[in-house]
């Protein structure tokens, strides 16, 4: 079995997870709840094995390196982190409908990694600048942040959907949206997820700066990728302050969670393909 096969399978297992969670949400298929969780955990384990195997394969090729250093690998890891954090949220907050909104993000990421012609799946060796443990720390921490923001965006969408119906009809467990958690609970989880993401994005930016300093002697050079990560960071700082000190919540925070994630996507993806800079290595 090769890593690419295992990782390829994950694309479909996450699609199936998405369908299971959607069924729980739309048809209130309560019986499927445990199945959905178990299935998603297995999918995560398969993906973990795939990533681990890819790591080993790189050693067999004589270029041993962590599988976190090009676009393909980072998208795969992004999907992995989304599922991992989602499962923690599911366990912590005892609610499964969030899966119908969060798991599709992982599926889309995997589908993009598997089927896009823009990115190569090859295990290529590392150019000298990328041979650093700080790089690994940087990638891992950034992606934990990104994944948390993805889930916050999923929660934001959930909030907005529930909110449109709530104004028209009262919460009633028999309606479609009745199975979504109460608005207050969604709002609370969204906020907690963003706070979590903010902490990791901060660590990600810092480890990136330390890496840059160890490689080039400059911890900050305002290259487009760095600058966009800072813009994203400012954006979430604004969101947190608006909530803490001006009492923003509900719809506004839901929208900010969505807009913030667009900024994340641009930082992660847009910069590599639309702008140029030091980080453009990620484009291959």
């Amino acid at each position, binding site marked *: 079995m090769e890593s690419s096969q295992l990782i390829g399978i994950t694309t479909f297992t996450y699609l199936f997870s998405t369908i299971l969670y959607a069924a729980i949400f739309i048809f209130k298929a309560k019986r499927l709840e445990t199945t959905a969780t178990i299935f998603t955990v297995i999918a995560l384990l398969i993906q973990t094995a795939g990533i681990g195997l890819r790591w080993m394969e790189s050693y067999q090729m004589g*270029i041993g390196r962590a599988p976190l250093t090009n676009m393909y690998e980072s998208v795969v890891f992004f999907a992995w982190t989304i599922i991992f954090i989602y499962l923690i949220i599911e366990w912590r907050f005892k609610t499964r409908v969030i899966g119908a909104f969060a798991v599709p993000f992982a599926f889309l990421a995997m589908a993009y990694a598997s089927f896009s012609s823009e990115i190569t799946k090859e295990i*290529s*060796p590392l*150019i*000298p*600048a990328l*041979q*650093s443990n*700080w790089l690994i720390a940087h990638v891992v921490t950034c992606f934990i942040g990104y994944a948390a923001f993805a889930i916050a965006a999923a929660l934001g969408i959930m909030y907005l959907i529930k909110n449109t119906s709530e104004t028209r009809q009262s919460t009633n467990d028999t309606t479609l949206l009745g199975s979504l958690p109460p608005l207050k609970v969604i709002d609370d989880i969204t906020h907690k997820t963003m*706070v*979590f993401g*903010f*902490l990791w994005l*901060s*660590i990600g930016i*810092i480890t990136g*700066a*330390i*890496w840059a*300093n*160890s*490689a*080039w*002697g*400059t*911890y*900050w050079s*305002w290259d*487009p990728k760095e*600058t*966009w990560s*800072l*813009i994203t960071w*400012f*954006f979430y*700082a*604004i969101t947190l*302050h*608006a909530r803490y*000190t*001006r009492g923003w919540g509900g719809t506004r925070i839901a929208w900010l969670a969505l807009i913030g994630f667009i900024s994340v996507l641009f930082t992660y993806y847009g*910069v590599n393909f639309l*702008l*140029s800079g030091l980080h453009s290595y990620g484009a291959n």
Partner: protein
Amino acid sequence: MKNNNSIWDFFASVKLALSTLFLLSITSIIGTIIPQKETAQQYIERYGEATANLFQILSFTPDMYSSVWFQSLLGLLCFNIIICSLDRFPGVWRQIKADNLNTPLNRLEKMTPQHQWQSHNPPESVASSLKSSLNTSGWKAEERTVDNGILLFAQKGAMTRTGVYIVHASILVIFIGAIIGSALGFKGSVMLPETRATDKIYTFDTQTPVALGFEVRCDRFNIEFYDNGMPKSYRSQLTVLENGKVVKEKAIVVNDPLVHKGITFYQSSYQPYQEFMLTITNKKTGVSETAIVSYQEQHSFKESGLRSGIINAEGRGENISRMKIWFTDDKGEPSLFWLDDGEQVTVERTTNNYTVSAKQMYATGLQVAKDPGVWTVYTGCFMMILGLIVAFFMSHQRIWLYIREEEDNTSSILMAGNANKNKAGFESTLQALAERINKV
């Protein structure tokens, strides 16, 4: 510290903070779309004369992020943080240091969450047993006699209220580090051919020479490739010399620089030459000679009759991996053989044997930086993470127990508490604690 005037309030306000952060985010985008640090000519070619001029007037080019207006926005953010902290911190400090046993009893009665129960024992004995069971649960209680009874107080995490201020201060510390770096440091580069030494480097922005106060020599530069042709490593063997004496030697690679007297040398680029270092050793006499020879040029060594040169070379682009050596000691036919870059072979001649090694000459491109602010910046980064963890995940929890004396020498107990964050979590903590201690 609190001045009741509107200028102060303006600079202390979170509204200003939100506006500044918003402006910083939006304007930062400009410099990611318009390429930075190009020449005036490049901008004119890219945007046309009029637009290029406009960009320059607005300081969007060539370096927006060090422009006066952008730096002023950063300065405003710092000023905002300072005033905001001066405005709020004294109040927070008072809360941390507050005499909580002085809290009015009627406030405790209104506080949520709270729990109440009765005891047959008199207040003094209830107080002492409550105190000890609070202690075993990790709450150190203080005690004071109040109207009709005894008040106990215990708290956890009072200092966590400073978390937000640590985060805000960390931003100032990072900026201070950046200022120290730009005021007292420099960033530059130097192209150093193998075997040469330099005592100065050239700054990035103005190309002005900066004296190092010592010499750096590049003894050797190596480049390694993966099988697929991608570069695997760049390595420079560097030697630091002070007054001609060797004081430090190190092989640097990307991500692993050499540091001497606060100046750091980073491996950043290289330049291959069409010249070769040819070393020939007479095996009998042990005499060794090294010469720098150009491609396809014959070189006569000091030992009489000894001549050699490189007549052919193969490699990847400008990087030579193999070369063909022509060699003679004037005794018999010249020897012709292929040699890998850096390799050494023994050449058997009629009367003597020689070892020959050849290596392409390179210059190593070093990035040179002195930044005495880096550790201040790192300290700020550390403070930020610490402060964020404290601010996000820790709370100040306070518990009061009012033990009121009732008739017949019995007691009624009111337990109340609050937390500044995670109130739901605190509620269950208090519930569990009440259940544990009301049995005593």
